[in-house]
């Protein structure tokens, strides 16, 4: 009887408040499992800013900071500069990182902060009820884009990983998805490498994880996974943008 899978001790025993089928839960598990497998759960200090995943500070079984909207990379910088031997990470949504917090993530990368950022991109504002995010796709409807995002009105969606990968201090940048088990396994590898980037003191690491929002996309959890695969992946290609080498 070998255990193939059981709940990670990197998670607390609280039930997650996320909507049924929301893939935040999967990403929480991956972060928790990676911290346990790397043996750093006891050294980890996470930063959860405003967004659906702010309550990650209750779900991840390590020291956590709740941060103001968009400011997690700055808070994490403060933590890491005081505790360089600890493992510091941020867990941020797209409304947080790609909108109000763009300066903070760009400058954390620019300074080569030795922190790890998990960037969950579900192309919408979840917590506040489905407003358009900078990552909302062209034509995708949202409560503040009732006719669908129109490039002429507010531009094309922001490609964060491509942008961050141009910054030298960002030593590991990869975009992954969690829409099926195979991709979840790949996502976990990338998240592990992003934490290892910090452990080796290389510099800033960011993993962009494409994620679903069944409730605000107005889809069933299963259809949401299909929508992600058919619409998000073509615009947000899953690939590694920086793997410790030089900026391409």
């Amino acid at each position, binding site marked *: 009887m070998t255990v193939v899978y059981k709940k990670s001790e990197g998670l607390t025993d609280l*039930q997650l408040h996320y909507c*049924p089928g*929301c893939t935040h839960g999967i990403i929480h598990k991956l972060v928790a499992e990676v911290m346990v497998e790397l043996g750093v759960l006891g050294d980890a200090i996470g930063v959860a800013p405003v967004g659906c995943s702010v309550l990650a500070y209750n779900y991840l079984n390590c020291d956590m900071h709740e941060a103001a909207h968009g400011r997690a990379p700055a808070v994490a910088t403060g933590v890491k500069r005081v505790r360089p031997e600890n493992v510091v990470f941020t867990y941020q949504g797209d409304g947080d990182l790609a909108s109000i917090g763009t300066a903070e993530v760009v400058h954390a990368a620019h300074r080569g902060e030795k922190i790890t950022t998990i960037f969950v991109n579900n192309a919408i504002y979840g917590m506040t009820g489905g407003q358009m995010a900078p990552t909302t796709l062209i034509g995708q409807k949202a409560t503040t884009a009732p006719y669908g995002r129109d490039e002429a009105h507010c531009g094309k969606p922001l490609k964060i990983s491509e942008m961050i990968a141009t910054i030298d201090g960002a030593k590991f940048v990869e975009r992954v998805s969690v829409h099926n088990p195979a991709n979840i396994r790949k996502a976990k590898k990338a998240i592990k490498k992003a934490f290892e980037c910090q452990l080796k003191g290389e510099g800033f690491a960011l993993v962009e994880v494409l994620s679903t929002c069944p409730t605000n996309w107005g889809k069933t959890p299963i259809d949401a996974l299909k929508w992600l695969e058919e619409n998000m992946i073509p615009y947000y290609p899953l690939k590694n943008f920086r793997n410790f080498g030089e900026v391409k």
Partner: protein
Amino acid sequence: MAKGKVKFNEDICKGCELCIIACPQKIIALDEEKINAKGFHPAHLVNEDACIGCGNCAIMCPDSVIEVERI
């Protein structure tokens, strides 16, 4: 003979059905006869013998409802 044993913590299942599409053997379904503490039909195995213990269902579950062991 089943290669895997799967346990569902039924009370915390949200009936999201992700495990159902993740299972290569297509042997998971929502239990229409039951309603759990959250008011959802919890997922369960419909054909335990066909389980190959791959763990896809547990990997896919956002809420850590499922534990899988290989026999």
